[in-house]
């Protein structure tokens, strides 16, 4: 399991970053419907069974908009120790894990027992520069993600942020 340092936990619990997240009306049904549609498009374009938007809170990730997740328990999120998207949010860059079973930080991740095997995620950066989560795809087989697949993911992540901005509480 990945080891998170106090510095990591402090960064996830940053009041400014959480305020940026709390500025969105995250429970709005239309928002979730739009994020579901983006996830479905991402999964279709990259030909992977699961795509989702994960918002990284202080101690857990929160799924907001997904495709294909229901077959894997439809979890509302995951503890940050188990979250793969943390690995895109922590450095603020793309994260690719072609085979979870071979990854030193994830080889014992409970998600492997659910049948998940590969991951690619790209961070969601607000206009103010806060990294609030990641848009990602998950596969049930080992997969080397291509540059063009990552470009699709980045375009979708930009679309997610644009969509979130339209659902500000103010």
């Amino acid at each position, binding site marked *: 399991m990945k080891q998170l340092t106090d510095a990591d936990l402090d960064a996830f619990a940053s009041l400014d970053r959480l305020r940026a997240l709390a500025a969105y009306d995250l429970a709005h049904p239309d928002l979730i419907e739009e994020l579901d549609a983006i996830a479905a498009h991402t999964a279709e374009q990259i030909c992977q069974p699961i795509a989702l938007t994960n918002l990284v809170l*202080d*101690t*857990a990730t929160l799924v907001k908009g997904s495709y294909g997740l229901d077959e894997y328990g439809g*979890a509302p*999120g995951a*503890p940050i120790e188990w979250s793969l998207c943390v690995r895109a949010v922590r450095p603020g860059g793309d994260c690719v894990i072609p085979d979870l079973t071979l990854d030193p930080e994830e080889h014992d991740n409970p998600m492997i027992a659910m049948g998940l095997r590969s991951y690619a995620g790209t961070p969601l950066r607000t206009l103010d520069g806060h990294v609030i989560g990641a848009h990602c795809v998950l596969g049930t087989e080992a997969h080397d993600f291509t540059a063009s697949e990552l470009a699709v993911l980045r375009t979708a992540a930009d679309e997610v942020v644009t969509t979130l901005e339209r659902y500000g509480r103010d």
Partner: protein
Amino acid sequence: MTTNASTVAGLTRPDVAEARRAVDRIYGSQAAGIWAELLVAAGLDGTETDPAAIDRLLDAMRSAAPVTALCGEALAIRVVSYDRLAQAHELERSTTS
């Protein structure tokens, strides 16, 4: 994967003390006042260790200001994740014994 009576895949079931640590980490010097308000709203004194106490506290957190509500949401996800995996491990143990 580590499994014992209280830890599943490195996760301990959140309790009131863990919630206090989460509030402290987010709010720093402002945490004491926010924590006191949450305890009043939940009808707790902060020393409780039973599962019902964290349920009441999470209800209060999710009804509080937006950032506190997100903190409560995160803890609730940790509770659900822990319970699901602990149940799965228990089922696995019962079918193999």
